[in-house]
């Protein structure tokens, strides 16, 4: 009886994730900083899982960073998103999957607002028609791309070549998972596990053999803060919030961090470098920092993809200590080569952070 009750309660924290036929919209930040992640996501979905994922070259930014820095009005953002719905409708799809957590949060906010205020949806339809002569149906299924990997985590495990286990000790790796605030803090029902028990990354980590670290500041923001990072004068806010998280997770000795938000993944990587150069400290015992992966990169490694093909050389914190623990073979000398194996130079070494 008790188990049945728990199941019933847990059902409230589940969400419907479509099984196939996805209309894919990219993330500005992901394409800029870790572009290999989106490529890896598509390879896993299309080549390994044989899913239908469609991309329309005419989709654009959702304007999310402009909206959350308050220079783009809500009506504008809603109409740009409505245009994406129109492209989805024109292509014959009903399931939309944004790669960006900010976009996902905004799409969710837009649909929620329209449900409560149909007159706003009507106004946006007028704006879109006036501006572009396009019409749309609202999506039947809206999920973040991390939800898709979560849904197929056991299928990926069946196809996997690597487990999240320390090859030398045989013990599960200790993993910090970081969920982007806009994934489910605004609309808890939109995230797997809600805002209280986000399971989207935990589900992947545990399915693939790792152990999740529960630490005090687990749900604290990475510190992006939109204007707080974009404007140079404000970046103290941004780095301070990441620092608070690093200090909180340090005693648990994470083997790596993983995030589902494009911004968070980048900040958790770059701020470790910044703090190391400013204060001479890292949050691991070797001075190399704690490697940070995107969930697509984590899935790619589990699937046996080459670290340099999926883009791990674009991280400032070196991933080699993690690859060694996982028992993944790699050639250090190939790390910074160009697409045809040509020499395109190498990054300079930081002053303090060991790479």
């Amino acid at each position, binding site marked *: 009886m008790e188990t049945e009750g728990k199941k019933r309660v847990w059902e409230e924290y589940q969400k419907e994730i479509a099984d196939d036929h996805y209309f894919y919209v990219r993330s500005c930040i992901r394409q800029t900083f870790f572009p290999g992640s989106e490529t890896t996501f598509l390879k896993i979905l299309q080549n390994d899982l044989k899913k239908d994922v469609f991309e329309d070259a005419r989709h654009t930014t959702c304007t999310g960073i402009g909206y959350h820095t308050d220079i783009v009005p809500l009506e504008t953002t809603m109409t740009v998103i409505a245009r994406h719905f129109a492209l989805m409708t024109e292509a014959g799809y009903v399931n939309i999957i944004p790669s960006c957590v900010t976009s996902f949060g905004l799409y969710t906010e837009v649909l929620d607002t329209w449900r409560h205020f149909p007159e706003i949806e009507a106004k946006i339809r007028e704006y879109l028609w006036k501006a572009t002569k396009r019409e749309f149906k609202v999506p039947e299924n809206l999920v973040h791309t991390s939800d898709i990997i979560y849904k197929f985590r056991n299928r990926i495990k069946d196809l996997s070549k690597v487990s999240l286990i320390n090859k030398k000790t045989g013990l599960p790796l200790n993993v910090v998972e970081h969920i982007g*605030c806009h994934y489910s803090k605004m609309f808890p029902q939109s995230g797997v596990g809600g805002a209280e028990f986000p399971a989207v990354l935990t589900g992947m980590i545990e399915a693939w053999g790792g152990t999740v670290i529960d630490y005090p500041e687990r749900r604290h923001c990475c510190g992006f803060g939109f204007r707080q990072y974009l404007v*140079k*004068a404000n970046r103290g806010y941004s780095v301070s919030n990441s620092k608070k998280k690093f200090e909180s997770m340090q005693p648990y000795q994470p083997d790596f961090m993983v995030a589902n938000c494009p911004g968070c993944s980048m900040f958790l990587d770059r701020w470790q*470098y910044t703090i190391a150069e400013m204060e001479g400290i890292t949050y691991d015992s070797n001075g190399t920092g704690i490697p940070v992966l995107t969930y697509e990169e984590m899935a790619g490694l589990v699937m046996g993809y080459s670290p340099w093909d999926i883009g791990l050389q674009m991280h400032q914190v070196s991933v080699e200590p993690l690859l060694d623990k996982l028992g993944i073979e790699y050639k250090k000398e190939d790390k910074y080569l160009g697409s045809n194996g040509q020499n*395109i130079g190498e990054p300079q070494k930081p002053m303090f952070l060991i790479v």
Partner: protein
Amino acid sequence: MGKLYDRLNQDIRFIEGLNGCLNCGVCTAICPAAEFYHYDPRVICATVQSKDEKLIEALIRSETIWYCGECMSCKTRCPRNNTPGFVIMALRKLSQELGYFTDSEKGRQQFAIKRAIGGNILRTGYCVNPDIVSPRMHPEQGPVWDWISMNTPEIMKKMGSNYKQAGVGGMRAIAPEVLEELDRIFEVTGCYTLFDTIEKHSKHKANELGIEISDEGIGNEYFMTVYTENNGSHNG
């Protein structure tokens, strides 16, 4: 000009974001900005809820409303289902519409954001792309980003992107006809009106302060001033 409170009450985010605050302060306890800045979302809600026009005007002329990072952690925790972050967004919109944003150091930064992010959206179809993350402006990105910036086309190719080319793929070129659609959406939905308002008041402030400002782009003294200036009074 209608009463400030009435104008706030026309913003759907304000209507949805403030159902009646009991001033418990849970939002302040969870708020990353409250920990870093002299910022207290509980007080913001109390001020707005008072409907005191003088207090609301002082608020939207102040530094305070620009401290929020819009992470929306407050939304999850509020026992009355308020969203102080949404209230902030409505306050910022009103502050910009009335030109009050130039009264504060943090508010004046809206000019830099409008020029950098707003300009980039219209020029490229992206909020952010590698071209606008210059190592000079972003030293925190580190030497790997320097290397990426020096080799962007090649690295994007290796990552399977379609950098600045036609067709689908990461960092592809957004076609001119698509940018025209964005342009018309920005026109129809009032974004250009907001942009013009930010420009007008920023130019006025630049002239008042005797700082050079150009008609477009980021290569002007006022941009660099608002982008980098920090008088040190915001925290600590």
